[in-house]
């Protein structure tokens, strides 16, 4: 780990300003991903801004009936919250499918959105990686790519976004609320929050330097049956090969988002028009532009089968 200076911020605006003031600064909350990457010197912040005292750890229902989740709400608390379990079951299920009990106690809502890929070539500093070291190449292309992305990929990067939570938030149309170093705030729809790799895989989201997530807001409950299905190599404590988040209404219409297949939670609203007619039609649109490798081509039929299974479960 490289040496760093450390400060505890006392307000969101102050934290964002401190980040703008200190070159190479990073926010730290749970630290479960950042500290791991710092030990490997993949992340080398010169300054850490501890945001744990910002009092962004509340879950509140707004006057409009939306659910506002503070950036520092721990994954455990979000999954166990009464309103989430009752009205946003897909989110609770996605959180509980991720990590371990210990990590969910530490990891935060905002940190989960910002976690970095678990691509083994990103983690191995002896390997080329355009995300870790722009311009050095991609070890995964032509390498062992069983875990990697099949859609929205580029010649520079085929990494996936590892979050389960973010997939549920995508299907729920969540909004990400932020504060910028100049004190102004903005709201970023989750659809626009994470980015595709293109030629700049080191850029992973829409945040500007120093911009701090303060909350994630879920629209009023969408109703329907919520299911999150995660397919992985172990029954627990493993990242997804593919995951499927659905909300299905009584008339068979609904929404679907995928995890484990792209650089961001993958959702194509146009594909959802075919929901009532089954998985095949949905996946033919959802993964129309899939670009697979020999190692991960299995993910296309796996998505279709997982979705078919989930839709049949949702029918009850």
């Amino acid at each position: 780990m490289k040496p760093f200076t450390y400060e505890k911020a006392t307000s969101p605006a102050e934290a964002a300003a401190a980040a703008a003031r200190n070159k190479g600064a990073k926010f730290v909350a749970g630290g479960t991903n950042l500290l791991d990457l710092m030990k490997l010197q993949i992340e080398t912040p010169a300054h850490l801004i501890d945001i744990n005292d910002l009092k962004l750890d509340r879950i509140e229902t707004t006057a409009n009936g939306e659910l506002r989740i503070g950036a520092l709400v721990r994954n455990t608390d979000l999954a166990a919250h009464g309103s989430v379990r009752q009205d946003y079951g897909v989110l609770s299920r996605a959180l509980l499918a991720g990590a371990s009990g210990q990590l969910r106690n530490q990891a935060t809502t905002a940190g989960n959105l910002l976690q970095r890929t678990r691509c083994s070539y990103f983690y191995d500093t002896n390997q080329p990686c355009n995300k870790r070291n722009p311009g050095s190449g991609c070890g995964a292309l032509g390498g062992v790519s069983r875990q990697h992305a099949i859609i929205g990929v580029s010649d520079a990067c085929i990494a996936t976004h590892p979050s389960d939570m973010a997939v549920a938030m995508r299907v729920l149309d969540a909004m990400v609320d932020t504060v910028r170093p100049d004190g102004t705030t903005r709201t970023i729809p989750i659809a626009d929050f994470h980015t595709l790799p293109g030629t700049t895989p080191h850029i992973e989201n829409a945040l500007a330097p120093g911009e701090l997530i303060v909350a994630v807001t879920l629209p009023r409950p969408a109703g329907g049956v919520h299911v999150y299905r995660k397919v992985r190599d172990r029954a627990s404590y493993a990242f997804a090969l593919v995951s499927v988040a659905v909300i299905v209404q009584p008339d068979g219409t609904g929404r679907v988002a995928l995890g484990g297949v792209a650089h961001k939670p993958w959702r194509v609203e146009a594909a959802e028009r075919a929901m009532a007619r089954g998985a095949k039609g949905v996946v033919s649109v959802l993964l129309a532009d899939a670009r697979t490798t020999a190692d991960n081509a299995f993910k296309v039929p796996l998505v279709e089968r997982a979705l078919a299974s989930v839709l049949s479960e949702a029918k009850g």
Partner: protein
Amino acid sequence: MTEFDAKRRQWLKVSAATAGTAAVARQMTGEAQAAPRDVPAPFATPVYVNVQLRVNGADHQLLRLDSRTTLLDALRERLHLTGSKKGCDQGQCGACTVIVDGRRVTSCLTLAVMQEGHEITTIEGLGTPRNLHPMQAAFVKHDGYQCGFCTPGQICSAVAMLDEMKAGMPSHVTADLTKHAVASAAEFRERMSGNLCRCGAYSNIQEAIAEVAGAKR
């Protein structure tokens, strides 16, 4: 002289001129000898902080702690509480699990400086050889270990896990999210998946946990 040698020599010169103490100089030389990276390491000296930790009911003042020190390293190397183990140092094995404010966490993935003002409980604070915590006694009775390396983490995790169940926290295998989870072997296995045991003592660990859970009900 290769380009790397030239850069390294120049860097060492800067280090020697700036280093204030022998200890710092040693550390920096050590770092310069580490494997070369794509980009030369930025010149940086360790940053020291004073940290007050509350562990097992006692306050400890840690002076001049390197800001990089994890909670695990502070517990083991500064407070000599060596029950918490360093297995993977990546949050994957659970051997370093301690309880912070009643919740189990991996102490390798948090910094000591971030834990000021929190109540930390390690395996040493749960029980003593003469006065075992019920979970410790159950692990002994059911032979819930072979080499014992993962055991302190398993026990801290199990104790906090049962509290999570009591508080009604759901898990991945809880059938109905709107109902209180019911204690079962499937629930314990899922909830303990963050603690690995290379010896494979899982079945005995599960029996120990089940017994304590039963005693609590």
